[in-house]
């Protein structure tokens, strides 16, 4: 079976420029700086003879690096993939591509896979930084694997969505703005709607109970839950995000789906008991997050394939 030629062409063009290598350097440097700063900030709180505190430092550094890696992916992916189809239009090469025997789904899939191959390069380049947190203790290799897997999942889904968004723009500049706007909306829309619902649900000054699943429509929720699922002690920013998810679910009657149930007696909910445990019954938060993001990615991809199909009513 022949490899999709779009993948080879995209990677060849991308790796011929200096920007690809500059991006890898910036990515790894940002993670290394994060690790250094977090380590320095936590160093004073951990005595050399307190092993528990020392492993907590390792966990804190690990989660901080994974969180920053996720944030960097949310910045890099739109920049890398926004021009996927819009760039073909701007270079006026799209027509010559559409009259070949490549199907629209092959063109889009080729663009996504090529972008992911490059993102994989970034992730692999970041592994030495993650390895340092492993050496600090408090982290198992499985934690690193899950952390990397969660970031890779976000990268796959986001790249698919942004390549699809690119088909709706005629210029790279427009596509880039659309892509960053879309990523920003995707990151905040769930928590924003949840927050608005919470404000509207003013039945009690202490408890609000909007549907908790709204908070899972968010790449950070996926990383926080999957990346901390195999906890071995200590906490960090991902654990704090996960705890917040757990609290929201607890307030929602212990369900992801309950529609503004009666307020929960908050004193009976022990937020600390949520740490390190599955967030109650029902699917895991990362499963809901992956499903919701996958539905968005699939819907956008279908629309993108339709948009690229030729012959069309107007020239695309």
């Amino acid at each position, binding site marked *: 079976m*022949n490899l999709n030629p779009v993948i080879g*062409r995209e990677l*060849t063009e991308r790796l011929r420029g200096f920007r690809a290598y500059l991006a890898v350097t910036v990515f790894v440097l940002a993670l290394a700086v994060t690790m250094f700063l977090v380590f320095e900030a936590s160093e004073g709180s951990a005595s050399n003879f307190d092993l528990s505190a020392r492993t907590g430092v390792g966990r804190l550094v690990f989660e901080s690096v994974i969180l920053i890696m996720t944030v960097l992916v949310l910045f890099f992916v739109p920049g890398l993939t926004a021009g996927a189809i819009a760039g073909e239009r701007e270079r006026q090469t799209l*027509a010559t591509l559409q*009259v070949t025997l490549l199907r629209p789904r092959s063109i889009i899939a080729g663009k996504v896979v090529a972008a992911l191959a490059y993102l994989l390069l970034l992730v692999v380049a970041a592994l030495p930084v993650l390895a340092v947190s492993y050496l600090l203790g408090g982290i198992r290799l499985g934690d690193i694997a899950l952390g990397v897997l969660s970031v890779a999942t976000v990268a796959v889904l986001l790249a698919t969505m942004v390549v699809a968004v690119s088909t709706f723009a005629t210029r790279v500049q427009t596509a880039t703005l659309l892509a960053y706007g879309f990523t920003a909306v995707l990151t905040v829309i769930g928590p924003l709607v949840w927050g608005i619902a919470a404000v509207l649900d003013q039945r009690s000054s202490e408890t609000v109970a909007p549907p908790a699943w709204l908070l899972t429509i968010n790449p950070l929720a996926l990383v926080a839950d999957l990346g901390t699922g195999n906890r071995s002690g200590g906490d960090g920013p991902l654990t704090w995000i996960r705890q917040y998810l757990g609290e929201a679910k607890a307030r929602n009657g212990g369900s992801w789906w309950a529609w503004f149930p009666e307020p929960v007696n908050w004193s009976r909910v022990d937020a600390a008991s949520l740490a390190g445990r599955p967030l109650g019954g029902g699917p895991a938060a990362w499963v809901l997050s992956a499903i919701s993001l996958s539905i968005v990615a699939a819907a956008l991809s279908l629309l993108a394939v339709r948009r690229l199909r*030729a*012959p069309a009513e107007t*020239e695309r």
Partner: protein
Amino acid sequence: MTTEAIERADSTPERDPRPEASAGTSWAVEATALSKQYGTLQAVDELELRVPVGSIFGLIGPNGAGKSTTFSMLATLLRPTTGSLSVLGHDPTSEPREVRKRLGYMPDVLGVYDNLRVDEYLQFFAASYHVPRKQWPGLVGGLLELVDLDVKASALVNSLSRGMKQRLSLARTLVHDPDLLVLDEPASGLDPRARVELRETLRHLNALGKTIIVSSHILAELEEMCTAVAIMEAGKLLASGTPRQILDQLGAARTVVVRFADGSSETFPVADDAEQVALLRRLAADEARPLLELREEHRGLEHVFLSITQGIVQ
């Protein structure tokens, strides 16, 4: 003059703008009442087009005539609004892949992948047309030799001149050995030498059995190269056939310029060979005005084009 020519054309009884079909002619392209509308703009209006297999067919028209829109419909990029279209026996709307296997398309805008090497560029399109990988080395080498870019095989595309990129684009259209080439302004931006070389290349490809449809604003080149032409304006087909056929249809086939021994000269319009022979006999018989020189004034494609178009830009 132009209005008169058009009025003469419109009043000519039963003037069929389509080329005449001889017995056994098969058509590479058949368009019947082909139309394309964008909102209120009628880009192509009831186009009747027949392109014989094995011909070099020129499509001429001012900017906005509908040439590129017609080419886009042939190349399976645009869906016609009404009418029917057949390309090599297949409908581009319902059987686009069958058409794409047999058609090579060169749009009027020159878009290439700058960061690829020349050979990589052709290999990419060979792969996109599912040409077996083992054929690539010979195919790419042969195509680069055909378009005189073999010395540039390892060069990056962005290092090529415009003319070289145009030739590379022509090579790209040939990568899957199509039967029909649709070339939208292939000579655009080329210097005179490059245009001559392109013309020779297209003749060579035609001699290999390929049907070629080409549009151009350089009418002299089309006249030299094309076996038939079609003239469009404002989305409509105004005339089709050889330049001589079109001139005959307009009733302004040719003129004969005569110079007499007394130094005077006259111009005589003639409709056909019989009329020209009769004129020459009459002039030769007139001993009072001996002939010194006879010359048939060539009324070419440019004259035809200017005669029947109004310069309407949509």
